[in-house]
């Protein structure tokens, strides 16, 4: 199952860091996401995008995960050579990830 079936995401940028939230449509799926969508698995999935460390924050207060991805924006918004310098579209890259349901 692809993540986009059960969760949504928003990408943010700070310097060369991309922040990717992962929010289940149904709060009941939060535990499943915690279990399946580890920082290591996201790092493997985004290996062609994120070159640095990925840190995962669990936020049970809002049933959401936050992935803070270092070295993810090809130097960052002001000097990146990519089309999407902010990495605004990277939320949908995370949602392409496959998990066993």
């Amino acid at each position, binding site marked *: 199952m692809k993540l986009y079936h059960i969760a949504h995401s*928003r990408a943010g940028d700070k310097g060369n*860091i991309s*922040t990717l*939230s992962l*929010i289940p449509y149904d709060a009941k799926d939060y535990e499943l996401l915690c279990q399946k969508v580890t920082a290591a698995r996201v790092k493997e999935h985004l290996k062609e995008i994120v070159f640095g460390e990925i840190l995962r924050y669990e936020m049970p207060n809002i049933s959401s995960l936050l992935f803070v991805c270092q070295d993810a924006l090809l130097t960052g918004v*002001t000097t990146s050579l990519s089309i*999407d310098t902010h990495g605004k579209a990277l939320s949908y890259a995370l949602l392409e990830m496959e998990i066993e349901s």
Partner: protein
Amino acid sequence: MKNQIRIGCGAGFSGDRLEPAMILAERGNLDYLVLECLAERTIALAQKRKLADPTKGYDPLLERRIEGLLPILVKNNVRLITNMGAANPMEGAKKIVEIANKQRIPVKVAAVIGDELSDKLKEMSDDIFKFNNENFAVELIKKHLSPSAHLSPLISANAYMGVEAILEALQSDANIIITGRVADPSLFLAPMIHEFGWATDNYNLLGQGTVVGHLLECAGQITGGYFADPITKPVADMDTLGHPFADVFADGSAIISKVEGTGGVVNLATVKEQLLYEVVNPFAYLTPDVSANFTTVKLEEIAENQVKVWGGTGQEKPPTLKVSVGYQAGFLGEGEISYAGHCALARAILAGETLEKRLKADFPDLRTDYVGVSAIHRTDFEHQIEPYEVRLRLAANADTAQKAALIGEEVEALYTNGPAGGGGARKYVTELVGIVSVLVDRKKVIPEVIIF
């Protein structure tokens, strides 16, 4: 002291739409309207305009925004707080007074200054520290202060100021407060502190107020903008997307909503997405006012388009302020050309590989993108769909505009020197302004308020 105020956010970036702010001012029943118009790079670009003309350097849309809003703000007794001053709040304030005089509307404008440090770097050089261990920004400043300063690529250095300066302006009877670089949430936190009499070391209240400011600061991003997806997250009436307001109570709790009849939606999903937007540590969201903790925040949808937010906490503010340093980062050269129909991707790849051979020696960092395939995610995650059409894009950085132009020139030359059926070539050269950050001792940054 009031026990409830309503703050609207009518702009989330410099180029934001004008109409939603007009609707908020007219029909939002607001106490305060905030226009947040200053992204990291915006101020460096403004500084360049100021260098070219000392009467400029404020937000390029200031005149259009104020001309439309001023009569409504005054009629409805709404105070405006905005960072549209950018690199030149003084001239921005004068321009607002000039517009008011023309419209025969009496206003008082407070300009908040003190964020600009470029002239003070020398005297504070012992109090400048690395941000996130990055050395480059510190080196830029050293070069700027060295005898070869005329070669310095430094354009601007602006500290993110907190609520202090805005609070002083709020104590005056100014209808409009215009600032330069101030942390975005501080634009919203200041009126809460002013109206509710919060102590500026009550970090739990400041943390919760900062949460509310953070939720509002990107305007349409909490009402369905940057959110809508017709299949998974449908949002009604995107064409009339409303901007948000918050009813904030003296205990810091707030209800996020939008003007009745506007398009868009405020629900748990939009609020959660915005709460986590651009957050690198939810336990310590650092602003000049507080280290806010987002992991204690509670959300509840209490009615259609109404989400209650409470429970944000905080700890003592950092001893340093972040400073954005803008510098000349050379030029970006780009070229694009499209291929369509049978073997479109194969022809685009042939074109891309041909140009890599022609350009790689002079542009080792040359980037080749296949738009429609793998340009945005830098991979297609093994979808391997044969696209009907593909746009090839090449990009590289260069020290001069002339060298950067070579990228587009070579792409254009594919018309007669490349694969079959290449069409729609375009070429661009963009002057780059880079932004890096340093930290400075906050005692060295002294805000000042000037009333016009």
